[in-house]
């Protein structure tokens, strides 16, 4: 058993190292302009939280959440903003940027002539894509806690969950990018993304939707992410949240595997 497992472990370690070298390349490519992008990415969810959560929330007042409790609208919306920003951050890195690197910079052609494998490139790029999202998630959770929209222990638990949501969407975005032929098709992704943003139980509890629409919404990834994060930040972590986690795990694993396979098909021909 041990003799069989050991070489495998060593191989996994090599793979992790090679994925890490891909991350290193991105760190080296980091230039000053990047900080502008960073600030923008952090501000976006915050602006939504203030304008809609606090601003519109003042008109709406309190709302009743599924477990029967009555909470302020900002409390209801904040976890959804967190999940949605994890999604959009991950998608922008893994669609636009990844596609540009693959198709226009032809960056990976050179990388794949080294021992690095397509799957390792995909994993490295995904880790890198999430580095930024991780900082955003932490900052946003701190703001939420300071505004008393959640508690410190809940925020602490929501942090890894948010990062994981980012990984799942990142893997999905990467897989999608490998099917894109030109920039125009990204408009389609952006449109779908915006629809998800509006209708995933973000601003209104999905229970209030017309039943067929509700069923449709419940199988989309952002709904599951919002449900998970809201469960941790606001309500409770139960069986449904376990389903959310399994769903996102499957999205992550499936997306990454598909991205690796497609990259090999596109670049190694």
């Amino acid at each position, binding site marked *: 058993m041990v003799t069989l497992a050991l070489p495998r472990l060593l191989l996994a370690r090599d793979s992790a190292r090679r994925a890490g070298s891909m991350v290193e390349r991105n760190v080296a490519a980091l230039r000053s302009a990047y900080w502008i992008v960073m600030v923008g990415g952090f501000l976006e969810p915050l602006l939504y939280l203030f304008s809609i959560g606090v601003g519109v929330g003042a008109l709406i007042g309190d709302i009743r959440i599924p477990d029967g409790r009555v909470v302020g609208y900002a409390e209801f919306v904040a976890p959804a903003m967190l999940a949605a920003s994890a999604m959009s951050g991950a998608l922008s890195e893994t669609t636009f940027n990844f596609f540009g690197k693959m198709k226009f910079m032809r960056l990976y052609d050179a990388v794949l002539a080294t*021992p690095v494998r397509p799957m390792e490139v995909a994993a490295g790029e995904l880790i890198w894509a999430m580095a930024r999202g991780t900082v955003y998630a932490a900052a946003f959770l701190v703001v939420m806690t300071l505004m008393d929209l959640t508690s410190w222990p809940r925020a602490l638990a929501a942090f890894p969950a948010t990062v994981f949501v980012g990984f799942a969407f990142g893997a999905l975005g990467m897989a999608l990018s490998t099917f894109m032929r030109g920039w125009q098709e990204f408009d389609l992704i952006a449109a779908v993304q915006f629809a998800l943003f509006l209708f995933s139980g973000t601003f209104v509890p999905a229970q209030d939707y017309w039943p067929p629409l509700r069923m449709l919404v419940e199988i989309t990834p952002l709904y599951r992410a919002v449900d998970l994060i809201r469960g941790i930040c606001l309500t409770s972590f139960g069986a449904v949240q376990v389903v959310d986690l399994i769903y996102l795990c499957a999205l992550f694993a499936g997306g990454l595997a598909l991205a690796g396979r497609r990259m090999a098909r596109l*670049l190694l021909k």
Partner: protein
Amino acid sequence: MSDPRPNVVRVSDESLVHARGLVKRFGDFAAVDGIDVDVRRGEAFGFLGPNGAGKSSTMRMVGCVSPPSAGVLRILGMDPARSGSRIRARLGVCPQVDNLDPELTVRENLTAYARFFGISRRVARQRAAELLDFVQLSDRASSRVEPLSGGMKRRLTIARSLVNEPEMVLLDEPTTGLDPQARHLVWERLFRLKQQGVTLVLTTHYMDEAEQLCDRLVVMDGGRIVAQGTPRELIERYSTREVVELRFPVPDQGAYGEKLAGVGERLEVLPDRILLYVADGDEAVAEVHRRSLGPSSALVRRSSLEDVFLHLTGRTLVD
């Protein structure tokens, strides 16, 4: 670097590239159509052939970034389909089109690339410095890649291919686009690598490059190998020892074709001159004068690989 026998090339029987019936298809089209190749350790091996002959397609298969469609391929004794990553760890690759990283500096292009091979940061920095020196780019180390001239980028790509101290280097048209100085610099560097025992596999359109660098070469055309051997062997087999280039002071050189019949082994009429393939050039020129044909110029030169190449693959552009 201080080799006691600088001009002795040690070639072993070990095959670093072993291909049998190797095929690469893109859809229905066979870019490489069943070639047999063996490259032995320590030799410099060349692929020649007109545009579209399948040289780059072959190089990519050898570099384990393009799966063969059929046939047998072993690189460093391993199967690319199963051990691609391990093989690539020991290869250096300079592709036909530079694919440097535009977001990194010249030096970072080498250090980041070294990291892909698992080379430590310290060693990577050291190698980058040595290699930049090797290709005379040290003064541009902190520059980005974009503003470099085409020739500088080419040299950087060649340097990058050496960052993992490869056993075998694959160079797809390494000197295309270089000025004469840079070309000679690259030739000299490649020659030094060869002396260190590095196996070189290269493609080229420059016949002088092939004659200078290659111990053995194959000429490809339409995805197949049409000739192979050492440069000397190919010249002996497919050409004559010397070539006489004659020009006549008339617009139509063709009229003289018949009058020259029998002077050499072979004769070729071009729009601006006539080529006579002969064993003894001076003797042929004497014969031309004996027939009192009066060419405006008669140049005797040694036959080159270029003559072989044109003879084998034709003078007209077919594609």
